[in-house]
């Protein structure tokens, strides 16, 4: 994209300077062992790592951020799904969660982490979930009142806004119309953006700079306040000195993840913010013995329901999800919609070949809605033969029921909006031709094996609990019985939250960082 000419007016994010960054690929020849010292080392620069880094830097600590991915700035973003996936996604977006059914999963591997490729939906943790954490789990100061200032601050950092009218696409209008006809309440979707213009490219990096991911907010802020960052640096193992954590070791890596030289960082505090898959992986590789590490994984399984309309919708116009439906949140169901590029849509809907191709021909007439399930089943992060973490998750019975209920309600919403047919995420019941067919969802055996699921939310794999018998960290994200080690990412979330998790992760990272600052000052 030709954005470089000096006489062209460009959005402000195009001019961001990233100071104090070292590229691990340039310094990391295979024979190298590079040593660093810092007060605090933070592994990962996503939703948890970046705000924690800024907080600790602003408090006067010397902070070093290690990021396995590369720095890709706003100027480099394009609408090319393949190129962007290869650059920004872990495994180029080809990750699967094993189980019945297998779940397609994606996450970011770049400076800014998954916030660079996410949809920007910014929701507070529901009060009933916070009440559960504070009342039932006994986690100090996680009640709604105690968390409120952190959500306020997270929203300022993320610049949470609502969509302007000019960014709403036809898909949004139909989504809202269907819900209103059924008498369901519709929520304006708060998103972390600064004057979004509705390009709808959020999932592969926002080329306009509007989405206020960590790449354009807390990362540059932390760096300009004095934090340092090393990219292409994969942390692998926590280092110990006596009974205390003294640092972290790892390897510089290529964009394909192949190993280069080694590094070691000595620090007073090690903060893992590598996400809910890799953080437990690092803990396991460091021989921490707590059996809770990696268990309790939640995945917010997501099933797609596609309404097909006579009129052209043009899903390429209009922002990524301006509204959501929280009408069934108490039942553990959240509805949204998203228009994605044809390749992604094809991959996340069942089938293949001619039949599937005929459906894809209707691309411009499709409204792709999805149900996000607040899962009760629990999965696991386990180590693979290559010493990397992998995930297992099987839908439990109640989640299977929730998926079926959610799919039925969404299909009803699509017909109410005027769809003349609806595609379902069930290989053995792929299509409904009219509202009278809805009963076929109830009538079908509620099995899990043929459901097409995907997710972009994983959490709770090193969760906060009062004791090491119940969880991995305490109520401030400090790893139980392991002084000098803390966690600031989705893995600490105590239970499935049922809404998009970014803001919860940011708020918890800010809250917990305040407690670590007190600890560091005391020592």
């Amino acid at each position, binding site marked *: 994209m030709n954005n470089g000419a000096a006489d062209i007016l460009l*959005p402000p994010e195009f001019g961001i300077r990233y100071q104090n960054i070292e590229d691990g690929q340039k310094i990391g020849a295979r024979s190298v062992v590079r040593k660093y010292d810092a007060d605090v080392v933070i592994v990962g620069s996503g939703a948890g790592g970046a705000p924690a880094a800024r907080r600790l830097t602003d408090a006067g600590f010397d902070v070093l951020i290690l990021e396995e991915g590369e720095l890709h700035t706003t100027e480099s973003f394009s609408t090319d799904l393949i190129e962007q996936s290869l650059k920004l996604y872990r495994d180029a977006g080809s990750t699967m969660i094993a189980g019945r059914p*297998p779940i397609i999963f994606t996450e970011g591997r770049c400076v800014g982490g998954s916030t660079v490729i996410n949809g920007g939906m910014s929701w507070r943790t529901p009060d009933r979930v916070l009440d559960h954490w504070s009342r039932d789990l006994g986690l100090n100061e996680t009640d709604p009142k105690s968390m409120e200032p952190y959500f306020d601050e997270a929203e300022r950092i993320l610049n949470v806004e609502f969509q*302007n009218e000019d960014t709403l696409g036809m898909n949004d209008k139909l989504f809202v119309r269907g819900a209103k006809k059924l008498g369901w309440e519709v929520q304006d979707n708060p998103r972390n953006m600064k*004057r979004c213009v509705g390009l709808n490219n959020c999932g592969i990096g926002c080329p306009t700079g509007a989405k206020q991911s960590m790449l354009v907010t807390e990362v*540059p802020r932390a760096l300009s306040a004095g934090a340092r960052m090393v990219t292409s640096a994969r942390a692998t193992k926590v280092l110990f000195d006596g009974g205390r954590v003294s640092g972290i070791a790892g390897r510089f890596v290529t964009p394909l993840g192949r190993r280069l030289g080694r590094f070691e960082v000595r620090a007073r505090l090690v903060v893992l913010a590598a996400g809910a898959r890799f953080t437990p992986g690092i803990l396991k590789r460091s021989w921490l013995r707590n059996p809770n590490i990696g268990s309790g994984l939640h995945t917010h399984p997501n099933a797609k329901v596609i309404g097909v309309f006579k009129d052209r919708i043009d899903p390429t116009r209009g922002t990524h999800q301006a509204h959501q439906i929280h009408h069934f949140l108490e039942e553990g169901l959240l509805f949204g919609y998203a228009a994605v590029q044809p390749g992604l849509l*094809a991959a996340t809907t069942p089938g*293949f070949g*001619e039949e599937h191709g005929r459906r894809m021909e209707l691309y411009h007439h499709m409204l792709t809605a999805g149900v996000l399930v607040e899962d009760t089943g629990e999965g696991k992060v386990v180590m693979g033969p290559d010493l990397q973490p992998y995930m297992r998750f099987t839908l439990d019975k109640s989640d299977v029921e929730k998926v079926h209920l959610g799919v039925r309600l969404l299909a009803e919403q699509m017909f109410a909006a005027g769809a003349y047919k609806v595609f379902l995420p069930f290989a053995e019941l792929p299509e409904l031709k009219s509202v009278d067919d809805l009963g076929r969802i109830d009538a079908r055996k509620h099995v899990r094996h043929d459901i097409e699921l995907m997710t972009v939310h994983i959490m709770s794999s090193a969760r906060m609990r009062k004791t090491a018998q119940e969880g991995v960290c305490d109520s401030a994200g400090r790893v139980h019985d392991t002084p000098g080690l803390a966690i600031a990412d989705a893995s600490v979330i105590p239970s499935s939250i049922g809404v998009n998790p970014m803001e919860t992760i940011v708020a918890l990272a800010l809250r917990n960082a305040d407690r670590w600052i007190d600890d560091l000052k005391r020592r």
Partner: protein
Amino acid sequence: MSVLRPYEGIYDVDVDARVLATMLRFVPHMAAPVRLSFPLGLLLVEFGAPFFGFGMTRFRSMNRARAISYLERIGRGAEPFRMLFDGLRVLVLVAFYQQPEILAALGVDWAPRAEELIARRAKLMNMEPSLANPRNAGVARADASRADDPTGTSS
């Protein structure tokens, strides 16, 4: 690939070589166990017909209809088979539907809108917020308090 992609109507375009090339670009990025077991998986598809009740035949010698039902059977199989099938399916479909000819046939072209909207946002960000961003003009900004904010977006 020839079983998983469609050929009829608007899809009657010879892009197989490029679909394969695109798929091969993904392979080195895959997690090691997946990457290493990928060729094994392909062998299993090629020679696995007897295990799925399709007799002593190779995948490549099946006609299209039979090959489709064979793949469907693998997809309904136990977890490793379902994962193998899903992985293959996803790879082929992403690579196929993102080919420029297929995007053109579907009438999808995101890039020109990107150019247009980058310019539009640049203009809006230079305007008075109450005009440029009427719904959010009063939102408190994290960077507004810092003159030295490096994100350059105080407004």
